[in-house]
C-alpha cells in the first residue's frame, strides 16, 4: 500500500530509519545485527521479505564484511545503505576509510552506543566520535523525526558530493523510544532522492575502470587533497539539500540549530537527543531570568566553523557537552573543535567542557540547569578555573 499523503506515525527512531529506507528503496543493503541497531535492520528486512522494496539485502557474517559488501556494491553503481552501532562500527573501521577514500556515496545509520570495555549497550557518542577522521559526513539527529529527515537528505548529499554519510541517532533514547513522526508520501521521497547518477561504475563494461589501485608517494597525496576538498566544499550542498527538503517537508535544516540563542549570554553546545532536554531546561531558566540558549550541532562533519563562530562570537560563557570521553586528558572532541574555532575572535567567550551521559547515563533537565548555573558563576567570575569537567558522575 503506497503512502499518498503526509502522515503522522508513532515510530521508534529505528523504525523511522527503516521507514525512510523503505521509501528510499536502495539497490543494496548489507548489514549485520547489533544492539541497539538490530530492530532497524529487522524492520527493514521485513519490508524486503514482504516485497515492499526492490533491495538486495545481503546478510553478512560481520560488520567488516557488511561495509566491504557496501563498498563493492557502491563501486558497482548501486545505491547502497547499511546501519550499525558501537563495536560494529569499530569493526568496520578500516573499511570506513576505504569507502570515503574511494569516494563512494554509502549512507549508514549509526545507532550510537558506548564502546567496551566495560561492556555497555546504551547510548553515547564514543563510536561515531572515534570515526570523525574517517572522511564520512556526519549528521546528528535530536529525535526520531530528524532521523527520518536526515536519512532522506543523506542520500542526496552523499551522491552529490561523492562522500559517504552517517546519520547518527542516540541508542535506546531515540532508537527504542516511540515519538510522533510526520512521514512523506512515497512518491515525494522517490522524486526527492531520484536515481543515483555516477560518472564511474565498476559494472559498466563498456567503460571499464580500475577501482582501488595501488597509489604510492607519487599520487596518494593528490587523491587525499581532492578528498579533503570534497569535505571542504560539502557544506553548500548540505544546505542546498536542506532547503529543498524544507520545500517538500516544511521542516528547516541547517548546519546548526539556534534555540533562544540570539539574546542569550550563556550557551550550551550539544549533539543529539540531549538538545531536546536542553530546550526545556532553557525555557525554565528563562523564567528564572537567566539568559540561556542552545547551539545544536546537526552537521559535525564537515565542521560548521563559520556558523559556530558567528553563533558564539558575542557570548559570555559557553559550555560544550561531550557525550564521549576523548581520552586526550584535556577534554572531549567537540570541545576542542569548538574552542579552536573561537580562537580567531577578538572577544572570545569563556569556554568549559562537560563530559556527560556516558554509557546511557540519564540526563535530566536539572543536569542541564546545573551546567547553566555553573555558567552564571563563570561569567560572574570572568574566568574558568577548571575547564574539563564531568556532569552527573559519582565522586
Amino acid at each position, binding site marked *: 500500500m503506497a503512502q499518498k499523503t503526509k502522515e*503522522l*506515525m*508513532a515510530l*521508534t527512531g529505528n523504525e523511522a530509519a527503516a521507514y525512510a529506507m523503505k521509501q528510499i528503496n536502495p539497490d543494496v543493503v548489507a548489514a549485520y545485527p547489533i*544492539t541497539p541497531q538490530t530492530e532497524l535492520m529487522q524492520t527493514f528486512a521485513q519490508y524486503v521479505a514482504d516485497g515492499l522494496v526492490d533491495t538486495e539485502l545481503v546478510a553478512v557474517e560481520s560488520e567488516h564484511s557488511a561495509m566491504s559488501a557496501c563498498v563493492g556494491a557502491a563501486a558497482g553503481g548501486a545505491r547502497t545503505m547499511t546501519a550499525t552501532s558501537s563495536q560494529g562500527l569499530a569493526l568496520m573501521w578500516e573499511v570506513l576509510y576505504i569507502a570515503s577514500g574511494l569516494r563512494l556515496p554509502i549512507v549508514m545509520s549509526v545507532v550510537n552506543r558506548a564502546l567496551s570495555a566495560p561492556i555497555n*549497550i*546504551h547510548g553515547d557518542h564514543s563510536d561515531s566520535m572515534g570515526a570523525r577522521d574517517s572522511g564520512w559526513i556526519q549528521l546528528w539527529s535530536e*529525535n526520531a523525526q530528524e532521523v527520518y529527515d536526515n536519512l532522506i537528505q543523506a542520500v542526496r548529499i552523499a551522491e552529490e558530493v561523492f562522500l559517504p554519510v552517517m546519520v547518527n541517532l*542516540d541508542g*535506546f*533514547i*531515540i532508537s*527504542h*523510544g*516511540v*515519538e*510522533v513522526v510526520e512521514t512523506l508520501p512515497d512518491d515525494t521521497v522517490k522524486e526527492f532522492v531520484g536515481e543515483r547518477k555516477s560518472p564511474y561504475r565498476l559494472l559498466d563494461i563498456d567503460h571499464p575502470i580500475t577501482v582501488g589501485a595501488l597509489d604510492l608517494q607519487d599520487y596518494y597525496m593528490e587523491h587525499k587533497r581532492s578528498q579533503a576538498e570534497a569535505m571542504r566544499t560539502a557544506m553548500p550542498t548540505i544546505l542546498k539539500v536542506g532547503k529543498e527538503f524544507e520545500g517538500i517537508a516544511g521542516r528547516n535544516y541547517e548546519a546548526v540549530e539556534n534555540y533562544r540563542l540570539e539574546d542569550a549570554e550563556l550557551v550550551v553546545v550539544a549533539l543529539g*537527543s*540531549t538538545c*531536546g*532536554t536542553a*530546550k*526545556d531546561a532553557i525555557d525554565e531558566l528563562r523564567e528564572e531570568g537567566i539568559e540561556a540558549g542552545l547551539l545544536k550541532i546537526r552537521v559535525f562533519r564537515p565542521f560548521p566553523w563559520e556558523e559556530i563562530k558567528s553563533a558564539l562570537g558575542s557570548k559570555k560563557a559557553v559550555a560544550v557537552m561531550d557525550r564521549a570521553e576523548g581520552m586526550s586528558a584535556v577534554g572531549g572532541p567537540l570541545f576542542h573543535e569548538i574552542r579552536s574555532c573561537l580562537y580567531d575572535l577578538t572577544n572570545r567567550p569563556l569556554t568549559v567542557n562537560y563530559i556527560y551521559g556516558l554509557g546511557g547515563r*540519564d*540526563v*535530566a*533537565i536539572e543536569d542541564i540547569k546545573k551546567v547553566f548555573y555553573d555558567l552564571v558563576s563563570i561569567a560572574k567570575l570572568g574566568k574558568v578555573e577548571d575547564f574539563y569537567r564531568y556532569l552527573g558522575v559519582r565522586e
Partner: protein
Amino acid sequence: MQEMLEIRWHARGGQGAKTAALLLAEALMGEGTYVQAFPEYGPERMGAPMRSYDRISSKPIRLHTSIKTPDVIIILDPSLLTDPSTMEGLKEDGIILVNTVEDPKTVREKYHIKGRKIYTLNASQLAQEELKRDLASVPMLGALIKVTGLRSLEVFLHHIRKELERKFAHRPEVIESNLKLYKRAYMEVKGE
C-alpha cells in the same frame, strides 16, 4: 487533560511492558496529542526488573530523559512493590495500578501505601483466559484507560485496532482476542 501526563511501568522482562508502553503511545497519538514511549533496559533478560515510560502531552515533547515524578505507575508484578524505588517520585495525587489477585484495600495495607489512588486488576488471569499467555501488560492498557479517563473505551478501541492491524498483519487471529481483553479489563478494574 493536563498539559503532560507521565506514566511509569514497572515489570519483569518478558511481561510485555515495553510493547504495551509503545502500543499505548501509538494508540493515543494524533489529533493534537503528542506521545513518547521508551523502555529502560538493564541487560535484556527475562524476569529481570525493567521499566518503561509513556509521556502523553498536548504539546510536542522534546524531553529525552526518564520519568522521575510520574502521574501514574503501573505494576505488572506486585512483588516489585516491596522495592521502595518503585513508588519513588509518584505524585501525591498519583495513581497506582497493580496486576494482582488482591483488592486495592489489601494492597494498601500490605505495602503500607499512604495517599494516592490504588486500582487493581487480576490481569494475569484475564490474559491467561483470553490469550492463553500471562501477558498481563495487555489488559492493563484497558484498565489504564478506565482509571485515567484518557479516552472513551470506544475511541481507544478504534485507534488501537488500527495499530494492532498494522503490527499483527502477519497474525490477524490475535487482534480480536486482544480487543476483547481490553474491554474486560476496562470493566473489571477495581478502585477503593
